[in-house]
């Protein structure tokens, strides 16, 4: 397997071809084919995980081919400790997503073709090392998402889809400008590896309109990625899109798409604009704080279960932002506190992964109850624990994982983010620990309203969660639990890459004060 990464990216495209060929009326066959394709993809990523050398944090399994040589654009792929967990997560959620979508009966062919295309787009973003390719995949991913929300979504689907699309499009336009700015200032190349070396030097001291070029590019890229994360003022597409999207798409949206933002910031902003990291870290921490508190407060007030989970995503991403900001602790300005930098950055990436599994679990579970009761009003249930003991047990597990209970992976990553950010942003972290409490408050309060108390007579015949649904949730629960008890398999895999990243930021950045 010399082209393992290419296979992982393009396998779903083969699936699309197959799905398109299969006649319209054979819905089950389409679903089976999609399951097989994503299953093979998952197997490949597991294989990739196994043969990836964690002790060497650099890019591995590189592939490179000329694409548009006149603009120095190439087809370049590679995987490191930052992208590998995301690739695995995508493959896993893509595979489970097929089973979550098993109940889809409207335009099955189109749905699964788009679903697979989404898979390819996201995989491509995570694996491409060429900036142009990155951008192309970024846009490829957008389109199926738009249609998936817009065609298979809830009652407000068109509004949600357009909102999502416009929001993200604004982000990608800003990103494109930044990409081009980097291209023209740093030796006309889209090669990320080259840019990582040249950009910090080439941009040093460059002024545009009286402002440092680094600041300009950083801001453009940051807004582009922040919309995806979503960071506080750019977050309102998320609840709507999550609520309106079909379950499997919500799963992908929360599980993977949000990670693209942070992945982009770490992969591009951090490596290419290390000076900007020092300029922006404080703001990043403040935004993290706002995300944590704002998201939690909004979640507390929700009566729609899915919206609650959506706001919890905003809340959880705040922790990752805090952890990311901690990287400056590693520099001489931050007190040479390498411990904090490592804890923060690893925590942020771990948090990304954990939020991927946990929120996916939450969305699947919300989907389960929605399928049965046809509404998601938290106050409209009551006492379901009597009727659905297994379901309530799993929801309890997911909620506890979501509120950062030790024993679940979310706890470790949140704790690491906090511990990492603490030395540099003491006050901010102390305030944001309130988030831990609010986190527990909204989850437990919702849990109590849905499952405790007297059984609502309307739902005395509600069927228990079925096998197919259990099958989609259990792998996620097992991963969450396993990594919560023993996180080393994950952290050993990423830590070397994070060390390289810290080194890049610390050694190249923060040396000059930006204008």
């Amino acid at each position, binding site marked *: 397997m010399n082209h393992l990464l290419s296979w992982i990216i393009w396998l779903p495209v083969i699936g699309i071809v197959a799905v398109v060929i299969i006649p319209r009326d054979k819905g089950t066959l389409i679903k089976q084919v999609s399951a097989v394709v994503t299953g093979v993809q998952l197997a490949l990523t597991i294989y990739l995980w196994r043969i990836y050398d964690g002790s060497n944090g650099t890019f591995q399994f590189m592939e490179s081919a000329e694409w548009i040589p006149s603009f120095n654009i190439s087809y370049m792929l590679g995987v490191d400790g930052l992208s590998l967990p995301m690739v695995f997560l995508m493959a896993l959620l893509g595979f489970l997503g097929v089973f979550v979508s098993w109940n889809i009966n409207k335009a099955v062919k189109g749905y699964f073709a788009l679903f697979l295309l989404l898979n390819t787009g996201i995989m491509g973003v995570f694996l491409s090392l060429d900036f142009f390719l990155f951008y192309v995949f970024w846009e490829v991913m957008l389109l199926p998402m738009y249609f998936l929300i817009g065609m298979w979504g809830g009652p407000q689907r068109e509004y949600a889809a357009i909102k999502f699309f*416009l929001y993200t499009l604004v982000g990608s336009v800003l990103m494109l400008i930044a990409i081009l700015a980097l291209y023209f200032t740093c030796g006309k190349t889209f090669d990320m590896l080259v840019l990582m070396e040249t950009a910090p030097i080439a941009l040093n001291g460059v002024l545009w309109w009286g402002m440092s070029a680094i600041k300009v590019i950083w801001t453009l890229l940051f807004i582009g990625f922040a919309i995806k994360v979503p960071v506080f003022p750019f977050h*309102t597409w998320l*609840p*709507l899109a999550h609520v309106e999207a079909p379950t499997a798409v919500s799963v992908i949206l929360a599980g993977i798409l949000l990670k693209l933002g942070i992945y982009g910031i770490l992969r591009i902003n951090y490596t290419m604009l290390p000076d900007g990291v020092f300029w922006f870290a404080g703001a990043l921490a403040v935004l993290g704080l706002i995300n944590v508190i*704002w998201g939690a*407060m*909004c979640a*507390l*007030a*929700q009566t729609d279960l899915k919206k609650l989970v959506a706001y919890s995503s905003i809340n959880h991403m705040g922790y990752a932002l805090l952890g990311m900001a901690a990287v400056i602790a590693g520099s001489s300005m931050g007190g040479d*506190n*390498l*411990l*904090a930098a*490592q*804890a923060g950055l*690893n925590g942020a990436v771990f948090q990304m992964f954990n939020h991927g599994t946990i929120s996916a679990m939450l969305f699947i579970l919300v989907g389960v109850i929605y399928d049965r009761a046809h509404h998601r009003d938290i106050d409209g249930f009551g*006492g379901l*624990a*009597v009727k659905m003991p297994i379901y309530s*047990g799993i929801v309890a597990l997911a909620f*506890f994982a979501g509120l950062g*209970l*030790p*024993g679940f992976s979310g*706890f*470790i990553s949140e*704790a*690491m983010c*906090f*511990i990492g950010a*603490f*030395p540099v942003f003491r006050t901010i*972290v*102390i305030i944001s*620990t*309130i988030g*831990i*409490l609010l986190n*527990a*408050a909204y989850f*437990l*309060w919702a849990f*109590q309203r849905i*499952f*405790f*108390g*007297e*059984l609502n007579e309307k739902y005395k015949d509600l069927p228990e969660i079925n096998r197919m649904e259990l099958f989609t949730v259990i792998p996620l629960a097992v991963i969450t639990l396993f990594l919560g008890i*023993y*996180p*080393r398999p994950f*952290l*050993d895999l990423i*830590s070397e890459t*994070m*060390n390289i990243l810290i080194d890049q930021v610390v050694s190249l950045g923060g040396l000059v004060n930006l204008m």
Partner: protein
Amino acid sequence: MITGNIITDFCLLILFLPVVAFAINIFIGKRLPRQGDWVSVGAILITLVLSLSMLMNMFMNWDPNFSHEVQFSWIDLGAFKIELGFWVDNITIVMLVVVALISSMTHIFSLEYMKGDIRYSRYYAYLGLFTFSMNGIVLANNLISMYIFWELVGVSSYLLIGHWFEKNSAANAATKAFLTNRVGDIGFFIGIMLMFTAIGSFNFQDLFSGISQGMISGQLLTLAGVGIFLGAVGKSAQFPLHIWLPDAMEGPTPVSALMHAATMVAAGVYLTVRLFPLFSPEALLIIAYVGGFTALFAATIAVTQNDIKKVLAYSTVSQLGYMILAVGVGNYVAAFFHLLTHAMFKACLFFGSGSVIHAMHHSLHELNDQDTDPQDMRNMGGFKSKLPITYWTMTIATLTIAGVPFFSGFLSKDAILAGTLAFAKHYPQHFLLPLFGFGAAAITAFYMFRLIFMTFHGEVKMPKVFKGIHESPRAMTFPLILLSSLGFFIFYTLPYFNPFSDHGWFTELIQASDSVVKGNPTAEEIYEGIHHAHYPAMALSLLVASFGIGMSILMYMKKKLSADIWAAKMGFLYKLSLNKYFFDENYNRFLYQPVLKLSQAIAFVDWDLYDKYFINGFGRVTKWLSFLTGRIDYEGLDQKLVDGVGRTAQGFGNQLKNVQTGRLQNYMLFALAGVIVIIVMQTI
């Protein structure tokens, strides 16, 4: 003689056997014979045996400095490392025995008490989880594992308190317990972060040595200490986070016994005991005041409660306040001693109350009476004859808690009070602390006997119910007998037999270590102070205890003083106490509701204002702009400018129309003429 690796193995078994039982019961418990209770009971009995063998080993070693530590690398990122592990010393071993003992008693007691419950196997599973979490705290050698199990204790208590979740009150109590604990946990976590940032390790020994090297000191250290203590405030239900504990009585009574004697609430005290060396003098002072105040404050509430379990609940809060107070004045060994004795008698009292409630419940059930509260002491009275075993065991436990000589409570309470007295002697400005202590002791004696008298003595209040009361089965009386007998002083003073001195294996094997913070008195100095305060404290405590008991006898047994008249006389105070100083109401009004309102306001701002007007505003502005540009484009540009061009062109066209003959040949001619022109021009 067990050493080294074997101890590690024992600890691993003790830690993980309950959680294995949990896993078995939660997944397949329902399908096992007897719903799998034997799995849990078996597992906990094995841990009890293992703990006891470790205790025996401790006796055989007789080494006050025994210490054993193992750890493994949990997270290793290069520079950032977290190592989890065990730290076993004599305190750990004693605590393990307490946990295993109380937990196994709870398991046995529940066999009868919970018989026929709809979620019987789940109940046993949760008990296992609870025991596991507590053992994790006991064995922890670092702040992170401490915190992990700390939270797990929280979640197990959530599950158990909410066991009967069909009742809204139980569901509320569970959520409240978890959230209140989380408030404390936040402080704990901040403390952990402060410590780690300064010292770079989570390990207790590293922390101690780091602090003694001055890596963290002054205000920061105080802050870290207070933060960690806040965790204990939450778990041990100290003022002002005590509110969850009385509500937690919604859980099954054996759970209350487990929670209040050995696990949950003991965790907070255990934490402060474990980390005593790192508290700065200022932090200790805060601890002392919080503890002392809680002790008195909770006792005053307990006086007026009528629910038998509520009385015990506030009594627990009060007793925990005692322990915290002891830690605060530096006498942390006494605190741990009291934790140990308290575990026995409080478990016994809860089991006793459970036995009473069980009997009441059955009787009411037979009468088909749904309205009478089986926990209300006003419905009881004269049960002495019907429940002899329960009566005697509870009386022994009450004597123990009241601090009557020959019982263990006397010794441990005396040690605490001596510590406070010595402290106040040294720092006369803190004279309040011993006052808290002695005041609470008096009130404790009073309300505990009030409980005994109201329940077991006096006239029968409800004859119908009374008729149906029967002594509980053996599985329930056995723990009562065992635990009440452990209330005798002898078990704590061996190999000595002086009922007025706590000198014994405990004091010999568990010795205070010095604080690592400069400015704190050394263990030696504290010991000296206590030694001098020992006899005055003993005399005083005997005095207040007999005062309390005497008052109680006068009021509730001899009826010489009417409780009602006194209540009326104290009017306002009585009301305050009865309503628990309106804490829940005020928290609700000034904390929960405002937070909820704020959250709704924020959500409204986020969704209905920010998103709808600001974000969508962009869309609207764009739409308006596009409309405007559309207008400009069409009416201005298109109609005037572009069409103007068009009209001009039309004019020309009209002129040129004559050229357009429509004859192909004409066109060709013109084309050729053009060709000629080109040729000519080329040539020129």
